[in-house]
């Protein structure tokens, strides 16, 4: 559906995007994840045609569209702010892209009303954007982007200005819509949880370069790079080295597969550790109550580990406990 080949972009003589390549298959919910200022918005603008890359190519269904301006590509983009045209009603806003495409009045009416219904905003049809709440406005802006029926839609942190519950709700709705309409979505966020929940595939962007990409599970459970593991907050990182097929670290020995001899880092998931009360070599130094579960921080030798679980026993700071680690852990090059 969409392919970027070595795309680079400079703004103010500063390299913002450096040789980014990726491919998004049809019907994929592809998330671009990254910290603030890493160039996520710039990347979306390049795809939309609002910015022109200095180098590289952008292909849309196999066709090179690098030189086509945004109005020729017609890839709808949803921005962080709803950006509804303030002088147009909700109906007119949604119809905007259909008018530019020259649809006739009847067809426009049907399409707009269908979308109003899908996004549950039918009663807002004749309102002016200024009188809507933030969530309602963002719904309208989603409807406006979906209206022309383009199979590819870009979303730039569309829910970041909404409160958390609304954010989850709208996120789920968008996901459902994407499945139903078989849309290809490029979704930008800096929120790991949101990315994990919604995506088919995630592309991790750091300082304008692709750090790593893969499915949510791959990135979370089996990242290839330390930076990825850190960013995804996937678990505890312990340093050690691989000797004769075994990973040795301060916590002991683990089976290792597919990593050559030498220094390496192990990833121990927070939920993969068993805790039993009773005298052990781990001492609890911090406890966080999370509602459904608890997180405790224990000190084993010089190493501190975070453990998450719904511990039945009473735990308190200073108490020593016994912990059991998994036999095999995921390893990365150091």
């Amino acid at each position, binding site marked *: 559906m969409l392919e970027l080949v070595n795309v680079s972009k400079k703004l103010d003589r500063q390299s913002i995007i450096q040789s980014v390549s990726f491919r998004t298959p049809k019907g994929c919910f592809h998330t671009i994840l990254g910290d603030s200022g890493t160039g996520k918005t710039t990347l979306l*603008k390049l795809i*939309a*045609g*609002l910015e022109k890359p200095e180098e590289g190519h952008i292909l849309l269904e196999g066709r090179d*569209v690098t*030189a*086509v*301006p*945004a*109005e*020729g*590509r*017609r*890839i*709808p*983009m949803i*921005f962080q*702010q709803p*950006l509804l*045209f*303030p*002088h*147009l009603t909700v109906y*007119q806003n949604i119809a*905007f*892209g259909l*008018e*530019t*495409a*020259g649809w006739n009045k009847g067809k426009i009416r049907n399409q707009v009303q269908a979308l109003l219904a899908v996004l549950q905003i039918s009663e807002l049809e004749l309102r002016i954007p200024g009188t809507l709440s933030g969530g309602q406005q963002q719904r309208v802006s989603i409807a*406006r*982007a979906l209206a*022309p029926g383009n199979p590819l839609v*870009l979303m730039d942190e569309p829910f970041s200005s909404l409160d958390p519950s609304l954010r989850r709700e709208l996120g789920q709705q968008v996901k459902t819509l994407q499945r139903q309409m078989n849309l290809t979505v490029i979704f930008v966020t800096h929120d790991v949880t949101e990315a994990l929940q919604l995506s088919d595939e995630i592309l991790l962007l750091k300082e304008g370069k692709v750090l790593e990409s893969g499915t949510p599970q791959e990135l979370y459970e089996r990242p290839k790079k330390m930076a990825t593991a850190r960013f995804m907050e996937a678990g505890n990182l312990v340093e050690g080295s691989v000797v004769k097929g075994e990973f040795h670290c301060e916590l002991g020995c683990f089976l290792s597969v597919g990593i050559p001899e030498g220094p390496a880092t192990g990833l121990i998931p927070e939920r993969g550790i068993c805790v039993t009360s009773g005298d052990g070599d781990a001492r609890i130094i911090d406890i966080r109550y999370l509602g459904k579960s608890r997180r405790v921080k224990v000190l084993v030798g010089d190493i501190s580990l975070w453990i998450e679980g719904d511990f039945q026993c009473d735990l308190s700071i200073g108490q020593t406990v016994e912990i059991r680690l998994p036999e095999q852990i995921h390893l990365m090059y150091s």
Partner: protein
Amino acid sequence: MNRNIRRLLPVMALILMVAGGLVLMFITSLTDPGDSGAALTLIHYRTLLNQSEFWTNAFYSLYLAVVASLLAAVVGTLTAYGIATSEKAVLRRLSERVMQAGLVLPYLYVVFLAFLLLGQAGLLSRLALALGAIDSPESFPPLIFDTAGVGMIWVYAFKGIPFVALMSLTVMTRINGHYRSVARTLGAGRLQQLIAIYLPLCRRVILWSCLVHFAYALGSFEVPHLMSAFSPRPLSASLYTLYLRPGLSSYYQAMAQGMMMLVLGAATAALYLSLLNRLLKSTTYFRWFPASDKGKDTPTGFISAGSVGLVLISVLWLMPMGYVILFSFVAAIPFPELIPRGFSLQFWENTLGRNALFLPGLYTSVRLAFLTGLITTLLGMVTARSLSRMEPSSSLSWFALISLPLYVPAVVLMLSLHLVMLRLSLANTGAAVLTVHVIISLPYATAILTAYCKGIGSELEETAKTLGCSTIQYHRKVLLPLMMPGLFFSFCIGFLLSFSELFSVLLLGGGNVLTFSMIMYPALTSSQWGTGAVMGTLFLAIHLSLFYLADGWVRRSSSQTDYLF
């Protein structure tokens, strides 16, 4: 009485003076000269309306005003849009500067440009001759004393386009650029973005500036007086002649004609503006314009139509100004030559050294302009403090009322104010001229200062109060420094408007007040191009340096401004 309303009293007194003048004019136009003055009569109107000449002139006037105003509306908004959305910073700066020059230059100066450029011995005629398009100067079409009024329309457009462009630009630059991005990703081309987003959002400011420009083009004195033939003659030119003609009946006729100008102008403006309003509001017709070059690749290095337009605009405005400056330094440039025969300072020496009126004229002008700037700024500040505390819609309504003097055709405004000044025994004095100059510059000063006051907002005052600052301290330590650039800008506007004025000085000063414009005027009527070029260059220098100084200060200052529209 509410403090906000009390603050509006001074400006309302001035507006009342304008309204009173119009009422006086109306009453006078109904007065029977034969009677003791008690009875009312329609005789003056009947006489006037039965003259076919009146109708010819009226339609001619309206034609000029509508065409000029339409040109200003279309080209002005396109230019503003080009400046607001151009990606080329240099071009943006240049064209904005050029438009500012067009805005602040006096009409008298632009009339002079028209003579030098469009006259039968002017630059265009010389160029046409050199290029072989015509074979004798006589075959160059008369653009100045012609019936189509090309010269006059050119002058009105030369001033009107920058006016509309800069007024709309104040709104356009505040439109979130992301709206355009959204529109583009939905397939809207550049013209469609203008029609669907920019025009509706700038509707009010475009309508306001078109109305003001329409009223000016209808009521200007110096332009038709210097540039029109005797028939058809715009009403504004014939009105003054009628007013000055000895005999009571022509005096009453003039009053009736003034009222008719007001009525016809209002009717035409209402019709024209409501059509324009519809057009600006409606977005349906954007289907007529190309959506986009769908899928077409734009070649790299492609020069956009917008850039070409901005360059063209800049050249069209800069060229004549450059020609005037050049003209003031030439030794001789006899027709039909294009290249001057050497340079000399003879015109400068003649004008500055040998003209006994020059220095006193300049002094009078500067003094008058200085006082106008000062009083306008003071009154504008009082008014702005009040407007900035109101709801946006009611401050806009008040502003619409305060701009009343700008909606009345200039000659009608001046004649009616003359009637008021006669009653107040102030006619033919500097005080009368000063008052009138304050009246016409106050709307602009109010607009600028209200924008500043709104930008500063009331939170700052509240914060200062919580820090133990008294009202007086707040004014001195916080408000005044923050307002300084705005105050200076408004002072300059008052100064420059007063400096440019001709007709008000002529009529209300009654020959007792001799200003710079008044000295330039005879140079134009008697075709002393050299003197004209020198005075014109001085005009240019004074106006541009003062304006750019003020504008630069406003830009450099970090104070926020919010706008009235």
